[in-house]
């Protein structure tokens, strides 16, 4: 479902060109959970951002279903994120001025895919029923990340991308959040690609890809 071929990306620093990705190839099948690991600076987050269309690759190709992501302009990439991707970040990135209920429904509403029954089920599975009227600042880190996962899956995207989703959480909460994410991925049948530092958490997914110095190790 997701195929990445010979992807490269470099950044210009003050004096030099730094190659972050140097020809990455990978694939994620529908319903498959894949962990992307690697040391700091290995290019994990950059790869995820390129797949999500948040940044542009220098060369190579990203294909999501029948769409070549690397050939899209800004508006089309935005539409791709809106309709076909779910994104979860380490910093939760909830909208502080919206309640939990509105945050959960936000992406599905702008994608025009709001499904009230699915929304109720998500709320129940994520244990957010009592928190719907609260605002993000009134939630703990684990609760905020559960809302972020709910928002990402509310429109039932074919692929869920998560960038260190448990990086700000303690071990127990991280396990709990990841368990919920895995359950929901299984329930929707979408692909799941998660960037993580944790070997322990990576081991709980179907497959692990290790990135070293911009290349798949």
């Amino acid at each position, binding site marked *: 479902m997701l195929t990445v071929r010979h992807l490269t990306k470099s950044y210009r620093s003050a004096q030099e060109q730094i190659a972050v990705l140097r020809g990455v190839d990978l694939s994620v099948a529908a319903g498959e959970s894949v962990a992307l690991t690697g040391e700091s600076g290995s290019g994990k987050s950059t790869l995820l951002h390129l797949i999500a269309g948040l*940044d542009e690759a220098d060369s190579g190709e990203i294909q999501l279903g029948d769409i070549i992501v690397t050939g899209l302009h800004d*508006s089309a990439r935005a*539409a791709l*994120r809106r309709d076909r991707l779910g994104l979860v970040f380490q910093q939760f*990135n909830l909208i502080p001025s*919206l309640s939990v209920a509105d945050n959960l429904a936000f992406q599905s509403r702008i994608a025009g895919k709001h499904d009230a029954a699915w929304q109720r089920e998500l709320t129940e599975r994520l244990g957010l029923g009592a928190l719907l009227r609260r605002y993000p600042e009134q939630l703990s880190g684990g609760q905020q990340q559960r809302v972020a996962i709910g928002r990402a899956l509310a429109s039932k995207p074919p692929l869920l991308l998560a960038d260190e989703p448990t990086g700000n959480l303690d071990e127990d909460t991280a396990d709990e959040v990841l368990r919920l994410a895995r359950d929901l991925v299984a329930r929707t049948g979408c692909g799941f690609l998660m960037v993580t530092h944790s070997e322990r958490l990576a081991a709980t997914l179907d497959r692990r890809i290790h990135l070293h110095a911009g290349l798949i190790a």
Partner: protein
Amino acid sequence: MRRALWILAVLLSHWRRHPMQFATLLIGLIAATALWSGVQALNQQARTSYDRAAAAFGGTRTPMLVATNGGAFSQQLFVDLRRAGWPVSPVVEGRISIGGRSVRLLGIEPVTMPVEASAATEIGRTGAQAFLTPPGQALIAPETLASLGLAEGATPALNDGALLPPLKLQPQLAPGVLVVDIGIAQKLLKMPDQISRLLIGSAKGPRASLESVAGDRLRLVQPDAETDLERLTDSFHLNLTAFGLLSFFVGLFIVNSAIGLGFEQRLPMLRTLRACGVSARQLNSVLILELVSIALIAGAIGLVCGYFIAASLLPDVAASLRGLYGAQIPGQLTLKPEWWFAGLAISIIGALLAATSSLLKAVHLPLLATAQPYAWQQAQHRWLRLQGTGALLVFIAAGLALWLGDSLIAGFFVLAALLLGAALALPVILGIVLACGERSTRRPLVTWFWADSRLQLSGLSLALMALLLALAVNVGVGTMVESFSRTFTGWLDGRLASEIYLNAASEKQAIEIKTWLKTRPDVQAVLPGSRTDLQFNGAPIELLGFADHATYRDQWPLLDSTSDAWDRVRSGDGALVSEQLSLRMKLKLGDRLDVPTPTGTWPMDVVAVYADYGNPKGQIGVNIDALVKHFPDISQTRMGLRVAPAAVPALIDAIRTRFGLDGRNLADQTTVKTESRAIFNRTFAVTAALNAFTLGVAGVALLTSLLTLSNSRLPQLAPLWAIGITRRRLAGIELLKTLSVALITSLLALPLGLLVAWCLIAIVNVKAFGWRLPFHVFPLQLVQLLGVAMLASLLAALLPILKLLRMQPATLVKVFANER
């Protein structure tokens, strides 16, 4: 569409969670729109009145023929010109007095009146027959009817006993004007078979040349785009507009500060929206939609406020225009639909202008939050360098305009450039002062005090600029008004030397009064005076006749004169010229004046220049006997009486009892001076009100900046609190910081304000009114304004400080736990 509405709802949710910030934004927009549209309402009201006056049966909007000598001419010329194919229509004009009130009387001939003279068509519709057939009608504006205390249908008597035809209301007529059939007007004005001017219709056809019919007795006057009144009052309206514009920009500072902060706080939200699949184009469109919606709401409220501001200022503006220019402005505000649309448009344009930098940031918003390429100091240095360069360029432009420019617009440009340059330079100067402070100490908390003040500079600079501008304008205008007031008082003492001033109801009565006064031992001298209006070198001027008497020689303050000035005036070949006329027509001592009179050209030399404050028209002072000789029909009803001060009340009582004169045409020197000062004060009442508004808005700008900044200050303050500095001490330091930058700003505003005053006195006043004034500095006034500015700053700083004092430790702890 639905998607856009969802995005809009998300953007608006920020304001719901930050009502104070939203209120700030609204207040800024409302204040900007209200002050701007209020001033525009006043200008529009006045301009509508001028248009009504101009449209009154062929003002200067219609081409016309007038006598070459400036006086009336024979009706036979009208007949001859009609026969020669000229589509002309006669008008007789003069002044009549009803119940002691002077009114302009126009006599027209509706059958030949050109359709372009708009009001004529109204007569046609309401019935030319009633207007033409006895007893006829006297058309009158509602305001004139009300001011005369008469009802429609009344037939008031003139001071000489003659009766007017029944009054008939005509709303589109200018105030202060009465229109009757030409035959009636000729009788009332005692101008049998005489015409003041001939209006020329647009009908084309063969016609003989003007010279072949009228010789050199008539000259053609082309229609003007502007009336005399518009020309005269332009400077007044320009002043008002300048103030409105200043208030508008000060209001926009608030808007800019609120939008900027709102945008910074919403950056993570905007990134999240983009990450969730909202395209940049859609996000920017919705951001603009949100801004326009807010601007429309604020604009509508601002317009209502603007209406009330205009309504409350209108009486003073009307009094100023009447006192300064004799312009009649109705006391009730009537606004055109364009005003409402323009108000909403200016609110939207203002909001977009204030949001430009934020919107541009949104357009170029990177999807991924990357590390800032510069540390804040580097970014600030770059920003300050840019502003400093901008300030320098603006100052150079001001210098060039001062050097090369020679108009009122150039004067205002110098003023605007000076203010803009100073505003741009302010953060640079503050940055230097604060950096010096930082370098001068080694105590850690004091070092932090200076360094943190510099850090806050970018967030506070707009509000401080607003304070600088408002204060400088206050100092400038205050100094100018006070200088003017002092000069005006001294000048009044010189010009109003007679103890009693009277204006007889008729020439017959004037002769009776003069004869009677000769029998009074308490009257030391009777000083007859007279004046007449005429066109001189294409501009309206006033010819003032006065007696040859020691009172004038000793007391009239002359700015410049020849050694034999008074003797030349007495002999009739010397003229005193008002300062504004000498500046406008570039007249200097010894120049020849050829004044057109009904008896031919009157040649005179300029022998002196005198100040004539408050008179928009140029004036030429001449000997009264010579004036009567050249204008045999001139009214000779005015006179001043020299009397021992103790005898004034008894003499006034005696004149009042014997001749039936009342307060309108009999006054003592004190009353005339009091009235003149009242006109002066009312003229500047509008300026004072707009001054206060501007300073108030600047105070609000400072308050809102501090309030909005206080929310983002927590990450800077929490670490200090964590290492043991109490909230009370932190609050004290914050207050001290705000007051320090406000004090530095205010101290910089004082010399800037004096420079503004110099510009107003030496450039704008001279170009606008033709008056040069001595420049005075009033230290007490400066200290007072400094005090007001510091009080405003203290009040503005107090609310955020109280907020900090009452802040729960849990809120400060959150900075460490939940910093985004």
